[in-house]
């Protein structure tokens, strides 16, 4: 049993394994994926029912409502990101594996995006159509939502890691992450409404992409640190 000759699995192997495992788990329990989607659709349809706006008002405020609904749906699905791993002890194994923890944290955030962010983006055209948004605006909205939900998943992973061990974590997670997600929400919603009024909107998209890159590089390290602290 000499320790030297064994061959450690590669970095990508660990990353792909954790994403594949989470997708497999979600496949076996579809409820976790569908609930946020229903929530998103319901919140997005509450606004027209409650405010009964005129068509132009609906078209103007539509982007903002869709974006707020997307943010809330993402926050809803973030609570259980690390919860099951924490409770059945797999978090110990993940932390104690030779694979770098930030990479595995990134894997969890990527799996969360695939399971909650991407479906949101795919469902959003239906909501946009019900808001009578013109086709090209829907394209802009999907692009901003795609970039925005990646940043939200990465930021949310930090919040989920910080609050995983606490029993009153869910309200706390939203309280921690919402101020941090404000720039994404501001740029996302405003870009779409700028596009709706025909003004140049490229700046917003560039910002969202830049924020996404920043989150992609820094968030996993904060998630790893938070996981080690919460799992003590």
């Amino acid at each position: 049993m000499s320790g030297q000759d064994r061959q450690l699995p590669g970095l990508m192997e660990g990353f792909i394994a954790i994403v594949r495992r989470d997708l497999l788990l979600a496949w076996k329990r579809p409820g976790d994926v569908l609930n946020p989607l229903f929530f998103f659709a319901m919140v997005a349809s509450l606004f027209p029912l409650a405010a009964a706006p005129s068509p132009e008002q609906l078209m103007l405020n539509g982007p903002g409502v869709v974006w707020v609904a997307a943010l809330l749906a993402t926050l809803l699905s973030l609570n259980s990101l690390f919860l099951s791993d924490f409770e059945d002890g797999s978090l110990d194994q993940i932390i104690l594996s030779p694979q770098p923890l930030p990479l595995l944290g990134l894997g969890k955030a990527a799996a969360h995006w695939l399971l909650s962010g991407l479906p949101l983006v795919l469902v959003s055209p239906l909501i946009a159509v019900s808001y009578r948004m013109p086709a090209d605006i829907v394209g802009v909205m999907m692009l901003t939502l795609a970039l925005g939900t990646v940043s939200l998943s990465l930021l949310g992973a930090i919040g989920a890691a910080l609050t995983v061990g606490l029993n009153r974590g869910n309200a706390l997670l939203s309280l921690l992450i919402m101020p941090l997600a404000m720039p994404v929400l501001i740029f996302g919603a405003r870009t779409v409404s700028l596009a709706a009024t025909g003004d140049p909107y490229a700046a917003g998209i560039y910002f969202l992409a830049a924020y996404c890159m920043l989150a992609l590089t820094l968030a996993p390290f904060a998630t790893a640190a938070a996981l080690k602290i919460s799992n003590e």
Partner: protein
Amino acid sequence: MWSFLHKLASPPHFYGISARMIPWFYAAGLLAVAYGSVAGLFYAPADEEMNDGFRIIYVHVPAAFISMSAYMVMAIGAGIGLIWRMKLAHAVAAGAAPLGAWFTFLALITGSIWGRPMWGTWWEWGDPRLTSELLLLFLYFGYMALRAAIDDTAKADKASAVLALVGAVNIPIIHFSVEWWTSLHQGSTLLKSGGPAMHPDMLYPLLAMILGFALLFAALLLARVRTEVLHRERRTRWVRDLIMPAGEAA
């Protein structure tokens, strides 16, 4: 100089030294605020636009300045605490949070009072500085809520330190995004916030007020950090001797 800093870093010395420093900070702070208020309220020339109403900036600008620097103190304390595992640094972060929240609240109130005559309403989403102050207040609430949710002090320190650092990275971004957003909204209602364009007689009281607020903040911070240090060192011998001098043994 280094030996002083090193001594200051050890809790028992810090506890003693800070007790002596606090009164001086209070005195200097009150002095500066007194001069700033009197000079600002009565001797500074009136502003053309809002004539005497502008004097609110002598309270609003320092409060906003302290609210921002309090978060920086918190983030630096958190960083040092996490990297070098120093309890005192975590105590500084723990002490700075509530103070920062109070000053942010103060900046919001005075800001909305100042804007009231011009906007006709108490709150104007179009004003970038007020909106980013509000988001800063939410950041403080998030930090304090996380700290309150974790019972074990050491764990609460480390977890909230991570949040403080993530928040510190986000503050400039939040500020930028609000500025960009309001410049689209309508750029006209920017509150003139002083700066070099101001008449010297207007400026000196403002600088005095900022210095005064900073000194008062330092005094309040030291007072709070002493409490946090005492709580974190509750099992040590020096705290036991401090609390129960030999004569008063149980």
